[in-house]
């Protein structure tokens, strides 16, 4: 299949100039032209089949889930546009070779240009709506890159951004429209869609689909009120303007309307919106073209005007209007591209394109003048040129309109006026620049452009003349074929003749010529009286300002939402959690479950009250740290007692050893916080927080109550039943920790290890202000390490470590275990640190805590992984009883080794955290400033 090659070759072609970037300029241009040239040959080859009436298809599945397929079709309409895109594209490649400055990057330009060509070809050959949208957006992207080609220019950047924003927005509307279409029709395949016109038009969503579609098409084709981006896109190099912004890209919207005309057209909505938009655009563009000084601006607005004309033709619901539209697309592309190129030559050779400084250039560049004259005449609609024929068709069609009732005559009248304006600005362009007056203050001495630069224009002018004189011979078959997929009966009985006899349209044409001449002669009045009012606003600035304002607005809204305060974030989270929990709770028939409550034990009651008092007191004394901490420890103690009372000695033990460690941690941290805490919260805020806290507390307590009063049937029983038989341990809690759910423990000790590493990371570069006085302004005692405490601590240390080891070793059967043992050991070591100071202790206790943590984790890991060697799963445990002389029966369980890992990790992590904090708190030690206590390495050095 050759069809995909038409798209593929230019795509590959976009890499050619990049690969050939070392070559000289002409070879680059020629190499670049090679692949699109081949694509053009294929197009012509396939075109012969299409002209016979075939429609060629090619399809590959891509993402069937969303109905996206690499599907292409090649029918008459595609053929017409493909020829246009490839033909003019090749001419532009030649032209650009001479237009671009040696300083400009040719590979970049040609690369982007080929990318654009590919996407444009994709639009016109897609057989899948999603694929079409893909290429549609690609044209916006490549157009952005091409407009901003001279990226150092602020105008180019702003123009490109604006064009991208407008066409991008249109593209998104188009996407929505196409997706809706897909939903209604049930497929994105163009073939299916083209056969589902009735379904679409009957759908209640039709108006929405239409409006979104038109938004897409109008933004692309610069229809009012989205026309404003096009004149600013003229900051692009002229070949780009010629190619994208007159001949092809702006026709994409038109193409889309033609493509979908068979399914979306023929409704009132279509008719009114499109006709009116086209009409307004035509006039607005024509008027603006009259008052431009910049020649490219003039051409840009005249393009807008002609696009409006074509759009209007599409809206008109007469038999021939669509034909006229298609025909005018071709004609406009030909004469407008040549005009742009001619203006480009003027700009290139004179150094300016301001019409006030140009004049009488005929003497300096006679060939260019002649070519521009013919092209201008074609734009004005002079007979025997191609512009004339399609304009005649346009005027003929306007006469057919009856839908405005008694006011229908307005349409042909306005059409004549529009044509007159077209004549006027064509005269301005051609006569003012090439014939009248003299050039003034030109930056360069004007001279004729090199021959090859004029070649593309010459070819286009020959086309102008050929089509103008022998329309049915040159383009009859093509148009016929194109129309066959749009409106099948459009061509019957229609001859593309130059001469239709003296009839009303011809008279209108003549009137337009005359009127145009008069307007041209009166142009000075126009300039002086109207120009000022219309040109004061620069769309670029308006757009930029709108963006700036929106950004400021966005910032304000975001600031409103995001207070950047942690307290607010917490408030939001708590409130949300409250809502979530309440959602479920309100659905319960009652909170109290079937299980009866136990009688209240006075001890329990007393403990509960003490716990509450402790908690409330902590909050109350929050400004007095020490007192607050003491109050907090009351609560902690009560929790430990509660665990004991409800028969979980392990938890109670853990709680008991965790409490002092955290207390020391808190003391160390609080040392660095500001001595006085200001009262920052207002009364209302405190009240709000109080209510929220109470609500969250109540709800969580309710959930607890509900859970506890319900029958309970859990996997817990399995654990108590199997602890001894399956895991060889009598202490179920410990067995759960190291065996049943050993994986959780492995994870948790990892968390502990990571935390230690994290604290090290946080603290090792931190330099904090070390206060020398207490909150009451009393200096801290100079005697840091009381002697008696130190001596006692030294004696106690081995005993404490023994206790730790004892707790650890008996863990499997009695309360204890690696975690508790580790914490006890850590407490003992901390005592040493407190008693003798960081430095003293470190010199004697050369333990690398990080290594300790790693070893602990590694032991746990190896114990877990060892069963793999025996073909068992990770963490599978093993235990057995041995009779050892003297000691008696002893149980050895692999879980104990695992627990050793836990033990070491806990000791290492706790010590690493506390020792690092402690180091921070030790003042006046410049020698230690750059050192970190993550190991004994530094200590070793010091010893030497």
């Amino acid at each position, binding site marked *: 299949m050759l069809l995909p090659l038409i798209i593929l070759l230019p795509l590959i072609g976009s890499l050619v100039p990049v690969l050939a970037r070392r070559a000289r300029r002409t070879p680059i241009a020629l190499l670049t032209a090679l692949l699109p040239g081949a694509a053009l040959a294929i197009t012509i080859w396939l075109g012969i089949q299409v002209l016979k009436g075939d429609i060629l298809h090619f399809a590959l599945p891509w993402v069937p889930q969303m109905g996206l397929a690499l599907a292409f079709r090649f029918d008459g309409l595609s053929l017409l546009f493909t020829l246009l895109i490839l033909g003019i594209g090749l001419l532009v490649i030649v032209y650009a070779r001479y237009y671009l400055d040696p300083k400009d990057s040719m590979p970049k330009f040609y690369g982007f240009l080929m990318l654009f060509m590919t996407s444009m070809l994709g639009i016109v050959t897609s057989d899948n709506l999603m694929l079409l949208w893909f290429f549609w957006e690609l044209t*916006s992207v490549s157009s952005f890159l091409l407009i901003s080609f001279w990226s150092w220019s602020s105008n180019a950047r702003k123009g490109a951004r604006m064009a991208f924003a407008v066409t991008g927005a249109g593209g998104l509307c188009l996407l929505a429209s196409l997706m809706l279409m897909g939903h209604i029709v049930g497929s994105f395949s163009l073939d299916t869609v083209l056969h589902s016109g009735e379904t679409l038009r009957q759908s209640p969503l039709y108006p929405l689909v239409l409006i979104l579609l038109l938004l897409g098409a109008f933004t692309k084709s610069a229809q009012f009120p989205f026309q404003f981006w096009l004149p600013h896109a003229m900051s692009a190099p002229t070949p780009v303007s010629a190619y994208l912004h007159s001949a092809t890209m702006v026709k994409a919207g038109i193409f889309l309307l033609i493509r979908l005309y068979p399914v979306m057209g023929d409704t009132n909505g279509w008719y009114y919106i499109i006709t009116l938009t086209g009409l307004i655009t035509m006039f607005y563009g024509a008027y603006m073209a009259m008052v431009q000084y910049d020649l490219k601006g003039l051409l840009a607005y005249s393009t807008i005007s002609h696009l409006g004309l074509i759009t209007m033709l599409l809206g008109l619901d007469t038999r021939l209007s669509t034909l006229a539209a298609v025909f005018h697309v071709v004609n406009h592309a030909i004469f407008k591209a040549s005009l742009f190129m001619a203006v480009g030559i003027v700009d290139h050779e004179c150094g300016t394109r301001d019409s006030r400084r140009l004049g009488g250039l005929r003497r300096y560049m006679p060939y260019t003048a002649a070519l521009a004259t013919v092209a201008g005449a074609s734009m004005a609609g002079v007979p025997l040129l191609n512009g004339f024929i399609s304009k005649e068709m346009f005027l003929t069609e306007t006469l057919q309109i009856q839908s405005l009732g008694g006011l229908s005559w307005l349409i042909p009248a306005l059409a004549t006026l529009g044509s007159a304006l077209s004549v006027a600005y064509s005269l301005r362009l051609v006569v003012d620049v090439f014939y009248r007056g003299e050039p003034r203050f030109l930056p360069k001495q004007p001279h004729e452009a090199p021959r090859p630069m004029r070649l593309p224009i010459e070819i286009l002018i020959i086309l102008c003349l050929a089509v103008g004189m022998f329309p049915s011979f040159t383009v009859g078959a093509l148009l016929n074929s194109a129309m066959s997929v749009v409106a099948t009966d459009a061509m019957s009985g229609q001859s593309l003749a130059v001469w239709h006899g003296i009839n009303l349209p011809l008279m209108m044409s003549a009137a337009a010529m005359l009127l145009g001449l008069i307007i041209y002669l009166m142009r000075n009045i126009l300039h002086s009286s109207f120009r000022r009012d219309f040109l004061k606003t620069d769309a670029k600035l308006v757009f930029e300002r709108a963006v700036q304002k929106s950004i*400021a607005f966005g910032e304000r809204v975001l600031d409103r939402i995001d207070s950047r305060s942690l307290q607010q974030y917490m408030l939001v989270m708590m409130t949300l959690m409250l809502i979530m929990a309440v959602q479920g709770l309100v659905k319960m028939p009652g909170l109290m479950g079937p299980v009866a409550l136990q009688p209240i034990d006075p001890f329990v009651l007393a403990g509960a009250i003490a716990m509450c008092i402790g908690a409330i007191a902590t909050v109350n004394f929050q400004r007095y740290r020490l007192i607050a901490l003491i109050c907090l420890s009351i609560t902690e103690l009560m929790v430990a007692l509660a665990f004991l009372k409800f028969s979980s000695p392990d938890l109670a033990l853990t709680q008991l050893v965790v409490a002092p460690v955290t207390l020391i941690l808190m003391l160390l941290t609080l040392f660095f916080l500001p001595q006085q805490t200001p009262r920052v919260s207002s009364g209302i805020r405190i009240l709000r927080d109080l209510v929220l806290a109470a609500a969250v507390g109540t709800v969580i307590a309710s959930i607890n109550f509900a859970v506890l009063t319900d029958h309970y049937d859990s996997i817990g029983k399995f654990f108590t039943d199997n602890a001894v038989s399956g895991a060889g341990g009598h202490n179920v809690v410990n067995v759960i920790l190291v065996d049943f759910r050993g994986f959780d423990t492995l994870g948790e000790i990892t*968390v502990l290890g990571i935390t230690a590493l994290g604290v090290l990371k946080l603290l090792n*570069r931190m330099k904090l202000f070390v206060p020398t006085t207490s909150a009451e302004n009393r200096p801290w005692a100079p005697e840091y390490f009381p002697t008696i405490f130190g001596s006692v601590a030294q004696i106690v240390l081995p005993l404490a470590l023994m206790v730790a080891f004892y707790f650890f070793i008996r863990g499997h059967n009695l309360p204890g275990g690696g975690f508790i043992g580790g914490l006890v050991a850590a407490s003992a070591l901390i005592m040493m640190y407190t008693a003798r100071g960081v430095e003293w202790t470190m010199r004697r206790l050369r333990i690398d805590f990080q290594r300790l943590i790693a070893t602990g984790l590694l032991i746990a890991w190896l114990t877990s992984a060892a069963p793999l060697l025996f073909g068992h799963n990770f963490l599978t445990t093993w235990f057995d009883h041995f009779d050892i002389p003297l000691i008696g029966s002893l149980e050895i369980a692999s879980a104990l080794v695992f627990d050793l890992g836990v033990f070491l990790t806990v000791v290492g992590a706790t010590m690493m955290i506390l020792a690092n904090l402690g180091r921070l708190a030790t003042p006046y030690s410049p020698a230690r400033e750059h050192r970190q206590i993550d190991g004994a390495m530094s200590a070793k050095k010091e010893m030497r």
Partner: protein
Amino acid sequence: MMHHLVIAPIALPMLFACLLMLERSVLPHRRRMLALIGTTLQLVVAVTLLVMTRDGTIWTYQLGEWHPPFGIVLVLDRLAAYMVIISTLLGAAAMLYASNGQDAKGTNFHALFQFQLMGINGAFLTGDIFNLFVFFEILLIASYALLLHSGGRKRTLAGMHYVILNVAASSFFLIAAGTLYGTLGTLNMADLAVKVTHVTERQQGLVEAAALMLMAVFLLKTAILPLHFWLPRAYAAAPGSVAVIFAIMTKVGVYSLLRVYTLIFGDQAGNIAHFAHQWLWCGGIATIAVGALGVFSSPDLRIQISYLTLVSVGTMVAALGMGSVDSYSAVLFYLPHTTFITAGLYLVAEAIGRQRGRAGTRIVKSRRLRQPYLLGTLYFVGTLAILGIPPFSGSIAKVMILTTAHGYQAAWLWGVVLLSTLLGLVSMSRAGTTIFWRAGQDASTRGALLNWRTGGAAIALLSVALLIPLFAYPLSAFTHDIVAQLAAPGHYVEAVLGQAPSLGEAVQ
């Protein structure tokens, strides 16, 4: 024997993390070598796991050989394998980038990084709700430590918000898990799925309260409005390689939502099925809106990318809220795209910030970049991809999500997503033109150039923008298969609880 591989994505990084902690030499080369070996092994494992699930097998792995629901079980289905390969690939890219010197800017980078991978992979693989909590803790605390890597006041502050909010959420996770356990008597997700089908009216209220709190915790992890506050500044402050791995952290939330609300509270859950959808939907839509606003108005490239992350998680969660099989599939298609592209953009942003001197990543006029073409191309591709402009990955992924919306949901989703895209187009074209083109003639002479490591990582990540469109067909087929498996949670339950032999044999 194959089933032992299921533990490898957790066990391997843990082993290497321990070894890396022990390797204390001053020069980083040996740590890099170790990390490289570890990452390579993990890649091999991840690919093997993906192949193992191709035919639809659900592999279970009983830790300690305790039969579920009593012991902890790991479950490898297509979804888990998919997520593991994504996180492993991302990890490899981050490693490559970090090994250019970022790893030596603070202590224990590689060890923490391996722990981070362990946490992420564990969250994807575990079949136990409490174990999920444990892995959440691992990945949270490791990410916090990594966020602080190479120091700085900004990082410390952003990190504090991040860690405190997340730790607070963790306590609610515990409350929720405790309530579930207290009510249904089990923690195994498959068992929960069974138990939840016959609850009393009382229990139903409790389960719903717990499930909704759990959802809120996941939403915080995913950074969904109004729980998104921690994300933008924390992510923007993270060092490049860390930001890369952060790109998957929000997806852990997405994964958890998808897993829990298809397996436990899916169709079969009767009265309590689908209660989360409305929340997800609204939260997602609101997040897209706020994210788009943030993208539009942020003065800094990194913050802009962070808000883009919000937009993408919003899109995913909203699509989850639509609750159809197609939208789940689209979300899974979208997931690797947004993960890799966002990660790549963070790397590009960091390189830009280094080469622009004092202007950093702020969107202001400055000196020229040292590598304008390379960085410009990467930024351009990444931006268009993340915004969803053809021909890059985002266009397919985004449109696929959009096409799965119907009725009023389509109106909302299309409107919000397309508007957010437009705002993104406007602001990112501004940012790009300002940074790359509105620059002086002379380039700054300082600032690290992208080399084969840093540039390689960025290019590898951003090449996804083209790879996904190229392989859209097999990828979409695979996500379709994943969702087909999710839609039939019975197989999962059978694989975990079924009468099948107790060792981790596979169940078809």
